[in-house]
């Protein structure tokens, strides 16, 4: 038997050591390079907006229209994100844990809104809730979506649900099924086990999903525009107001709205980031 391949010292030779050092250093350099390039791109692009935007910011932040749209944006994005969580989590669980015929097809259909341009999503929702008997009966029941704030939420939900789902699903797939099983031997029903074990273990993925969904909801306007229009002080979210200003050719005002969106999202993302870190320091190894 030749158990002496690579015997003592072979891999420890000066050359080998230096080589590894160099390669690890290179790795770190490459990592930093990638980060710096993308950071620079984003900062350069966004700061262009901020520089132009902050000139008009003081004025526009006080206008009742901007205040209205800020509030509307926050309201609709929070509600639609909450709805996405409520739907995506159980669906993802079902898709991961339960086998049923047609699962692959169901999966692909649930991914569909991902690739629809928002305008198309908007038109299709309009057709469904505006143009069909079904939509009219819903409207009679008080669930009116066309030209209504509820429509903004619906549009954001439709446009975002697939994102949430994909992310939550991929997280759930990585959870050890034995942990859930153990919780059931300890007395959990399937649902309790889901809430007490699966969901907390999926925390990182959930946070990612919420951040993405919420950020998208704050920025979405293509679909909502189609479904509810852009009526001043009624269905005018921040991005709609931005779009309106943009198409008036009023670049300064538009950049001001954009600056507000950017500011709002920087602040919220920072908060998320900090909350995330806090949670982590509790449950991970130092």
């Amino acid at each position, binding site marked *: 038997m030749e158990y002496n391949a690579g015997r003592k010292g072979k891999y420890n030779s000066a050359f080998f050591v230096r080589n590894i050092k160099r390669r690890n250093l290179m790795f770190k350099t490459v990592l930093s390079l990638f980060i710096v390039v993308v950071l620079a791109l984003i900062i350069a692009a966004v700061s262009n907006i901020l520089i132009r935007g902050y000139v008009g910011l003081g004025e526009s932040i006080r206008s009742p229209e901007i205040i209205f749209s800020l509030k509307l944006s926050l309201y609709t994005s929070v509600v639609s994100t909450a709805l996405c969580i409520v739907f995506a989590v159980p669906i993802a669980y079902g898709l991961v844990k339960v086998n049923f015929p047609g699962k692959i097809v169901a999966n692909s259909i649930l991914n569909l809104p991902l690739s629809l341009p928002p305008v198309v999503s908007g038109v299709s929702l309009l057709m469904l809730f505006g143009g069909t008997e079904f939509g009219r009966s819903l409207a009679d029941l008080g669930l009116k979506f066309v030209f209504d704030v509820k429509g903004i939420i619906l549009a954001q939900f439709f446009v975002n649900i697939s994102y949430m789902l994909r992310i939550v699903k991929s997280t759930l797939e990585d959870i050890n099924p*034995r942990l859930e*099983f*153990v919780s*059931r031997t300890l007395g*959990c029903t399937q649902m309790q086990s889901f809430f007490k074990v699966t969901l907390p*273990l999926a925390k990182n993925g959930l946070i990612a999903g919420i951040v993405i969904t919420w950020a998208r909801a704050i920025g979405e306007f293509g679909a909502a525009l189609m479904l509810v229009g852009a009526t001043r002080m009624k269905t005018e979210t921040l991005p709609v107001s931005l779009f309106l200003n943009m198409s008036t050719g009023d670049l300064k005002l538009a950049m001001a709205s954009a600056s507000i969106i950017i500011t709002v999202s920087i602040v919220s993302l920072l908060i998320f980031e900090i909350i995330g870190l806090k949670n982590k320091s509790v449950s991970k190894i130092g």
Partner: protein
Amino acid sequence: MIEIIDLNKTLGDFRLRNINLKIEDNEYFVILGPTGTGKTVILETLAGMYKPDTGRILFDGKETLHLYPEQRNIGFVYQDYMLFPHLNVRENILFGLKLRKTSHEFMEKKLDDILKMLNIDHLEKRYPATLSGGEQQRVSIARILVLSPDIMLLDEPFSALDPRTKQEFQSELKKLHREFKTTTIHITHDFNEAFALADRICIMNKGEIIQVGTPDEIIYHPVNEFVARFIGCDTMKNVKITAV
């Protein structure tokens, strides 16, 4: 009483073959066998992780096929602990009790007793990722002891403990068993442990049961050469001393 009747279960290339076992109430039943013979698979099937391919499992005469794991009132200690990584030691241990709506004082009292008994009171606030192997194992044992389940399934519960600690817990477990007579199925590799604890021992090999009997029967009347060789190693001399 647990009855396993003609149980067959195929997992990949592995097959549990014609398992027939009757485990009496209050019995302390130990399963011994080389690695990879299906000991863990039997426990997992009893607990409801796998559906048998054929055969039946009866608890007190009742068919269990359609019982969910949580309806079997079983405590399971996994070979690799399976602590909930998002909960600290205290929360891990109280996990089952909290589901059972017991009074707060009772819960605290029980937790205290168990933490002391297993020497892990200083770890109450720690998360599993920071615990040593033996510490995790003790938490995993504590997690089911607080529940006093009808049946305890212990998959090498002491493998990560040093001999002193192990011995302490063995006698503690024996005491508990004498007191509460919980039906226990215990997998181990340690002959000392097997012979010290078992009312009856089951020897398995390659997915089959080779012999079931009291420790004495196994030692003095092994049914075939495999059993004789499997338990007839050096430690045997020692075993006889401790077991009797």
